[in-house]
């Protein structure tokens, strides 16, 4: 991370608490039968009267929550759920992807809508036009109709497809010209993307196609990628935050393979990144001032001194105790003559020899202890005398023999210790001589010495690498090393050195006699770490230390540790690493390739694991079912609508995808809705203001006759379970 560059850091936006919006006044529409327009979207619910220019919107979620403190039940809708943090867990949406499933939630959502429109009549006395998904499942439609007609008693209800109405709004003819535009509508919804052809102002629903990839799937994909890239990220990334990242940083790539080839270069990768800074808490470091540090050091020294004093005191006490014991025993010896045997047994000594032995031990202990107190250093062992060793066996009695054996052992031990000491001294002298030699060499010719050591360093590193490679090769069953190992095992098992005859007669196996035989175990046993490895690492350490100390050109970067943990420039650009204590850096997310990778899934859903054709292919399939003239009419007006269509670069990308599959002389024109989010509602409102609404809606009487599933087939509605008007 270089400080000189300006990094593209954006902080996560702070979500303010929502504000309460008061309901509208109903007076404008009382008893006027103004049509009610409801755009029932998977993400947002948009509702309003047909005479308004904009709808009221709210997130299409409902939460029934019981506040724990006051024990009051709450019913919250849309952004109101943000006001109560506990309610978010209870939030339910009527939609599951593209299918309307939860009707309690829908009922509560519609209640909210009607309350906020101010309706206070016993029934909702307005003709209603509502959206449904392309070829919506009949179950959803039946229950919605039931809800509207039975619960709210609307006079009539019409269903339409949102994207077609958005198209209508953007291509609205001035009356009395009827609506006969042609076009190919590409609708980007929350959970799907659909392609619907329109000819002569009529939607051809049987030729429409739907891709199961939409904004929610894209958000999940981005979240998965971020989690894989940052497995140890300190805070949890929520779906709302990911969706904010998707909307603000992602864009379509006009030519995806070319873009990838460009991003291969780590510099370009770095240049393309956007950084999102998540909130973090700086740890409070207790800075101890100078005097505090001094005080703490003083306290530690005091403690040390006190401990020493205590130890000295206890030693003195023990010494005194020993002296008194000695006195007691000496007096005992003097009284030996005077006392009888009975009293002796009390003291616990069997005979003179035991008493003398105890006295001698105590005396020697005392002498040593006193000397230690006085000198404070180790004493030189006086060479102890072994008088009995030289006396021949014959002269000694039983006790004497035992004594002699003991003395011989003692002497052997003493001599061994002497030898060991001399060896150590010799080694020390040798090492010093070597170091001195090296220093001289160093002083003479620094460069030469450095190159010699460096060669050693490289040799050790190579050996380590070789060993690692061999270990890796052994795990692979088919490698040469592994097969050689199997061969040696097989040879051992066969063991042809013992001829068959002798084996049958129980001949001995001469395996271990030759020392070289045991080497074979090192080759076979792959799991045991060989001591060579440790030796190599130890040597490496010493060599590196010497080089670091004396060679100015050998820096910490050249050591084996840093070489092996080095990350390539590409990886560093892809996911920059921050130092351990950098809390701010560790809560950053760098988006570079993901900015284009996620929207690319619209055109290649297989990138994200969805087994479906992409947008380009689907458009091609849809167009293939029309004749050439019809195709020409369709592509002259390709219309893109829906919230996700606001991701940048969509139109150039569509152009680049469609142009190659069409004949070159066919004009191709791609257009985005003026307001991709609200135009569907506006189109429905426009339509509701005309007379046509009366013809296409299902009245209450018709509902009671047909049930909830049947609708009338018209240019803007679905075709499944429909009857022609």
């Amino acid at each position, binding site marked *: 991370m270089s400080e000189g560059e300006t990094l593209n850091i954006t902080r996560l936006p702070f979500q303010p608490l*929502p504000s*309460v919006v008061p309901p509208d006044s109903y007076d404008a529409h009382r008893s006027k039968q103004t049509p009610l327009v409801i755009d029932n979207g998977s993400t947002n619910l948009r509702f309003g009267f047909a005479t308004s220019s904009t709808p009221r919107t709210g997130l299409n979620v409902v939460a029934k929550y019981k*506040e724990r403190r*006051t024990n*009051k039940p*709450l*019913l919250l*809708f849309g952004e*109101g759920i943000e*006001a109560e943090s506990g309610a978010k867990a209870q939030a339910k949406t009527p939609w599951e*992807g593209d*299918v309307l*499933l*939860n009707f309690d939630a829908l009922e509560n959502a519609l*209640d*909210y809508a009607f*309350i906020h429109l101010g*309706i*206070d*009549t*016993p*029934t909702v006395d307005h003709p209603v036009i509502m959206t449904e*998904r392309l*070829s*919506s*499942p009949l*179950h959803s439609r*039946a*229950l919605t109709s*039931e809800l509207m007609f039975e*619960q*709210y008693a609307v006079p009539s209800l019409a269903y339409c497809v949102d994207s077609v109405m958005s198209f209508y709004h953007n291509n609205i003819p001035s009356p009395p010209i009827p609506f006969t535009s042609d076009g190919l509508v590409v609708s980007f919804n929350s959970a799907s993307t*659909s392609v619907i052809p329109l000819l002569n102002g009529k939607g051809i*629903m049987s030729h429409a196609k739907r891709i*199961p990839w939409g904004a929610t799937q894209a958000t999940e994909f981005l979240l*998965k*990628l971020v989690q*894989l890239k940052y497995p140890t990220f300190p805070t949890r990334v929520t779906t709302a935050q990911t969706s904010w990242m998707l909307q603000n940083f992602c864009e379509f790539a006009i030519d995806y*393979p070319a873009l*990838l080839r460009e*991003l*291969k270069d780590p510099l370009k990768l770095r240049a393309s990144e956007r950084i999102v800074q998540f909130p973090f808490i700086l740890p409070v470091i207790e800075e101890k001032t100078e005097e505090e540090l001094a005080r703490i050091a003083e306290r530690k020294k005091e403690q040390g001194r006190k401990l020493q004093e205590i130890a000295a005191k206890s030693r003195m006490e023990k010494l005194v105790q020993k002296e008194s014991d000695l006195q007691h025993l000496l007096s005992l010896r003097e009284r030996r003559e005077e006392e009888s045997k009975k009293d002796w047994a009390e003291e616990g000594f069997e005979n003179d020899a035991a008493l003398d032995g105890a006295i001698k031990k105590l005396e020697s202990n005392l002498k040593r202890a006193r000397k230690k107190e006085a000198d404070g250093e180790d004493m030189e062992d006086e060479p102890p005398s072994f008088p009995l060793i030289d006396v021949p066996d014959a002269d000694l009695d039983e006790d004497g023999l035992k004594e002699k054996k003991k003395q011989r052992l003692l002497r052997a031990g003493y001599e061994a210790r002497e030898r060991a000491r001399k060896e150590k001294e010799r080694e020390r002298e040798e090492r010093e001589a070597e170091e001195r030699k090296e220093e001289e060499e160093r002083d003479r010719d620094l460069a030469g010495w450095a190159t010699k050591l460096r060669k050693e360093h490289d040799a050790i590193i190579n050996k380590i690498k070789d060993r690692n490679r061999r270990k890796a090769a052994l795990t692979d069953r088919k490698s040469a090393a592994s097969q050689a190992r199997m061969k040696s095992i097989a040879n051992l098992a066969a063991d042809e050195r013992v001829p068959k005859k002798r084996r049958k007669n129980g001949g001995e196996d001469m395996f271990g006699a030759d020392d070289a035989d045991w080497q074979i175990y090192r080759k076979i046993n792959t799991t045991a770490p060989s001591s060579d490895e440790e030796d190599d690492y130890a040597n490496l350490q010493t060599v590196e230390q010497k080089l670091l100390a004396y060679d100015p050109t050998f820096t910490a970067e050249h050591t084996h540790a840093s070489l092996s943990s080095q990350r*390539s420039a*590409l*990886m560093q650009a892809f996911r920059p690493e921050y130092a351990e204590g950098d809390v701010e850096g560790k809560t950053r997310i760098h988006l570079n390739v993901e900015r284009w990778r996620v929207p690319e899934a619209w055109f*290649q859903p*297989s*990138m*994200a*694991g*969805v*087994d*479906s*054709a*992409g947008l380009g*292919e*689907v458009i091609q399939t849809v167009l293939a079912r029309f004749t050439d003239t019809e195709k020409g009419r369709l592509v002259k007006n390709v219309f893109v609508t829906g919230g996700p269509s606001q991701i940048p670069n969509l139109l150039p990308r569509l152009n680049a995808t469609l142009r190659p599959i069409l004949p070159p002389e066919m004009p191709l024109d791609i257009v985005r809705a003026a307001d991709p989010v609200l135009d569907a509602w506006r189109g429905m409102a426009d339509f509701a203001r005309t007379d046509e609404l009366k013809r296409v809606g299902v009245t209450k009487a018709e509902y009671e006759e047909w049930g909830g599933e049947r609708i009338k087939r018209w240019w803007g509605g*679905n*075709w*499944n379970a429909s009857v022609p008007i």
Partner: protein
Amino acid sequence: MPPKGSTKRRLAANDDGSAASTPTLAEQFSYLHQPRPFKNPHYTKNVNRRTKNLKTVLTQERERERAERERIRLEKEGNMDTDGQAPEQNPADDLPTYSSIEAPPSVLPPGRYCDITGLEGPYTDPATGLRYHDKSIYELIKGLSATAAKDYLAARGVNPIVK
């Protein structure tokens, strides 16, 4: 559902005197106790309204669509002329349903992208099956744990069989 028109608006602190007189933000948002006169008090919760699972709904749709198609086919066969001139119309032309509208699987060859970086991924690691961009990424893959490798594969939609 009992009629809600009779309950008062909940701004008056008449329940417990110790509670705050101004309602909290959440309570202001809550419309649980607001009157809903437009609801029909005689409408009982239909048993059909029990929230069904997405899978059951879709299978139900498919069954019905198949039954419809059978019926239409039988009808057409019944109405066929003796010399079999009735045109064979694809029922899907007239009856688009939720499942028939779904896009077909892709026929284009899938692109090979690196699972770790997202760049081109021409090489595949035989041990885990991950695609990678170059040597340095391969070093990284060698150091991944089994769960991490499985997570990367799951992002691509490949779910390896649990051995």
